């Protein structure tokens, strides 16, 4: 039987709300990036770096990367527990699901570290 032990919060309501709040954060960040590019069609590297390294965008970027990690984990956990269940895969389902979840954790954690590393090294590299 699929259990809740590895779900993000172990609460359906909390996971449901977190997934939607993080989706809003991701959407707003995308709007900020697209809005900047639309408003500045002749953008050059200096203006782009200045925009991305502003304190507001650094904090917003950090929040976005954390939101991505939470959003991705809840979504991928849901997909895994839908498709990799005993009803579909028999007695090996738990092992397959564990491997899948381990892989997802690795990918999300890698994105998280690289994302935060790139974001916070920008000021040191360019300023």
């Amino acid at each position: 039987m699929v259990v809740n032990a590895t779900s993000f919060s172990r609460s359906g309501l909390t996971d449901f709300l977190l997934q939607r709040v993080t989706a809003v954060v991701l959407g707003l960040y995308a709007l900020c990036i697209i809005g900047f590019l639309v408003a500045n069609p002749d953008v050059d590297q200096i203006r782009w770096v200045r925009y991305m390294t502003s304190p507001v965008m650094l904090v917003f970027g950090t929040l976005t990367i954390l939101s991505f990690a939470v959003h991705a984990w809840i979504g991928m956990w849901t997909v895994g527990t839908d498709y990799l269940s005993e009803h579909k895969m028999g007695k090996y389902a738990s092992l397959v699901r564990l491997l899948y979840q381990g892989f997802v954790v690795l990918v999300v954690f890698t994105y998280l570290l690289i994302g935060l590393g790139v974001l916070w090294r920008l000021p040191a590299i360019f300023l």
Partner: protein
Amino acid sequence: MQVSIYRFIPDSDSEPRMQDYEYDLPDDRDLMVLEVLENLKAQDPSIGYRRSCREGVCGSDGMNINGQNGLACKTPVSEAVSRDRLVLRPLPGLPVIRDLIVDMSQFYRQYERVEPFLTNDNPRPAQERLQSQEDREKLDGLYECILCACCTTSCPSFWWNPDKFLGPAALLQSYRFLADSRDTATEERLSKLDDPFSVFRCRGVMNCVNACPKDLNPTRAINEIRTLLIKNGT
């Protein structure tokens, strides 16, 4: 018309098969799918299916008719048939006992989980627990469910996690008691639904709404439960 019926008799068949029958439809009137089945059973008594009231009240003859879950007794052949062919299969997602008869134990287990009965811890009144007309109207569209399982067995989330996701029929009944002004166990009921599977596996696919032979809307009831959970939990 050709009628293709899912056949599986565990005593003699090693695996399921489709058996074809030729059927001459009358020119002067439309038949229900159940009437076709009954006439075919008169020719071949080995065909197995459930039926009882034959007027959409008992919910016994739920089956998959040309890819769509529905009650055989309420589905006109003229609406169901495609390219002069009628394909009858058992409700998907439940174990087949024989032919069109499925084992509904899992469906009933989920129904049992929502405690589909009125719970009231106030002192028992002399006659009955009264309800205003407005409060009574809140139960319209909820109490009419006949538990035919057409909705639940058309739901992919139930196919994937039948032991953890309650399914549309059970959730409709859950909301029927959450919405009842006479029920005092709202907190307890909601606390049993706040896990990642019971309610929140509903993806809003709305197959349940499409399949319900009583024109009920389980998706709306599920959204109402979510709203109650949010109000209760935030």
